[in-house]
């Protein structure tokens, strides 16, 4: 019993030290964002300065339309997530349940590209976007991401685990493949769909290198790119930089607080897939 108590104390100490390590950078960011430039250059550092300097926020939002960046990121993420989930699950269904010539070869092609790093595609994709005239438009960030080999593979694997007897009955009732897909397969695949959505969403929301290459106009920038271009301007003005960082993180942190369970579930389901 005593040993148990000691163990628990140690566990809590470890957890709290770990937790502080996780939270401290965020607090540091927030506190810096509210300081004056002179206070930042004082030693030892303090958590709160003498005065709370809100001007840093005004200064940064004056030059960088973070709300615009946020909606740009949101628009791109939502379109890509919805489209990718749809195309992946439909093709996954075809691979899992339909018979057609060349199916194995086509699926092998998908599998082969699964481990191709995105960066292999970066230069050719840029050339393609240029030919299409899509450089510096959101289309260059959306269209190439509408389809994912990983998503297709994930959905096919999941659909294979759905027993055939379920659709047999529907088929006898005269259901079309369309009906079977939407009424039986999709509802049964919520966990896989959630996982795919969250992976895709995190990938697109935080994507940096593609916006960096494709987008030039400030008003079309996504949050990470907008943030990086702010860094270029206020390279040494840490309070202003941190204010920008706070603004950029706020929406996603708030969303996380409200939808924590979904986030957590979405990630953990993928772990089960091993």
């Amino acid at each position, binding site marked *: 019993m005593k040993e148990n108590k000691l163990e628990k104390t140690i566990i809590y100490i470890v957890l709290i030290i770990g937790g502080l390590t996780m939270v401290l950078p965020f607090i540091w960011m927030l506190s810096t964002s509210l300081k004056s430039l002179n206070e930042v*250059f004082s030693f030892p550092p303090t958590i709160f300065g003498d005065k709370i300097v809100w001007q840093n926020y005004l200064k940064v939002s004056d030059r960088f339309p973070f709300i615009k960046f946020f909606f740009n990121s949101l628009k791109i993420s939502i379109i890509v997530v919805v489209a990718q989930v749809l195309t992946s699950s439909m093709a996954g269904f*075809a691979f899992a349940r339909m018979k057609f010539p060349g199916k194995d070869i086509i699926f092998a092609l998908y599998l082969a590209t699964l481990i191709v*790093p995105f*960066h292999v595609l970066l*230069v050719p994709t840029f050339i393609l976007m240029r030919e299409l005239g899509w450089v510096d438009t959101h289309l260059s960030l959306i269209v190439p991401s509408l*389809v994912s080999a990983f998503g297709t593979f994930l959905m096919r694997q999941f659909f294979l685990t759905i027993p055939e007897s379920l659709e047999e009955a529907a088929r006898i009732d005269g259901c079309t493949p369309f009906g079977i897909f939407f009424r039986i397969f999709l509802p049964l695949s919520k966990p896989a769909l959630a996982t795919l959505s969250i992976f895709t969403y995190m990938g697109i*929301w935080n994507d940096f290198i593609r916006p960096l290459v494709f987008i030039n106009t400030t008003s079309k920038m996504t949050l990470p790119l907008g943030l990086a271009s702010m860094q270029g301007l206020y390279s040494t003005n840490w309070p202003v930089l941190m204010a920008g960082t706070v603004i950029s993180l706020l929406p996603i942190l708030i969303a996380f607080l409200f939808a924590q369970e979904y986030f957590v579930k979405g990630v953990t389901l993928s772990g089960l897939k*091993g």
Partner: protein
Amino acid sequence: MTKKLEKIIYNNYFWVAIFLLPNFLGFLIFILLPVLASFGLSFTKWDLLGEINFVGLANYQNLISDSTFWKVLWNTIYYTLGTVPLGIIISLMLAIILNKKIKGVKIFRAVYFLPVISSTVAVAMVWQWIYNPQFGLLNYILSLFNITGPSWLTSTTWAMPAVIITSIWKGLGFNMLLFLAGLQGIPNTYYEAAEIDGAGSWAKFSKITLPLLSPTMFFVIIMSIINSFQVFDQIYIMTGGGPARSTSVLVHYLYQNAFEYFRMGQASPIAYVLFFLVFIVTLVQLRNSKKWVVY
């Protein structure tokens, strides 16, 4: 509906087309075509503005004789060795602790997950400021323990470890959550049975937890290694590959070649080296997994 009609509807290529074609077209144009084009580009010299020239294997030869490339390749491996094992050990430990029935699990879980949902660019900027040798938080904390901290991001010795620490911090929660899910999938009866046989904590961990966690472990290791090979964001933001190229990695060098020096042909072989690395890791892991992953 007659049986015949039903068969037509179900096996009709019409339906195959509806379900597969949108995806397949996208796949052809935006994945397969670029992969092949990238291969083709690797035999050319082109700056996207002027004429395209076929140069045979010159780009590959250049790469082999390019000392920067080898440095960058080593940096990539250094970064991977620095982040993956340590990141996995810490996140596994945390997962095991959080799997015990203690109060406030949800809060801790959320706290450890905060960096995961934050964008890498934002995280990198915050840490850049934390690493400031004069006024940064880290060296201040070190000074409380009478340690004079190094000049982190501007030191050729410490810049890479600094980037590694940031990456571990950022990815910890994600791996932890995966492990947690894996742990929760292990039935308690196994542990109870082991306790009856008088097994200690270490025995329980090595004989029950680790083997039963191996599928998750397999997944986490592969994903972590592949992600480490492709690191870019934090390096671009925090160090720009410096000082003296001590933190430049494959993708950073690829980006520089393509979009700073505009040598598209020279960027492609680097991309293929990256692909080759990922391919090898996947292959080796798949082979090895048969030996240690228990399904």
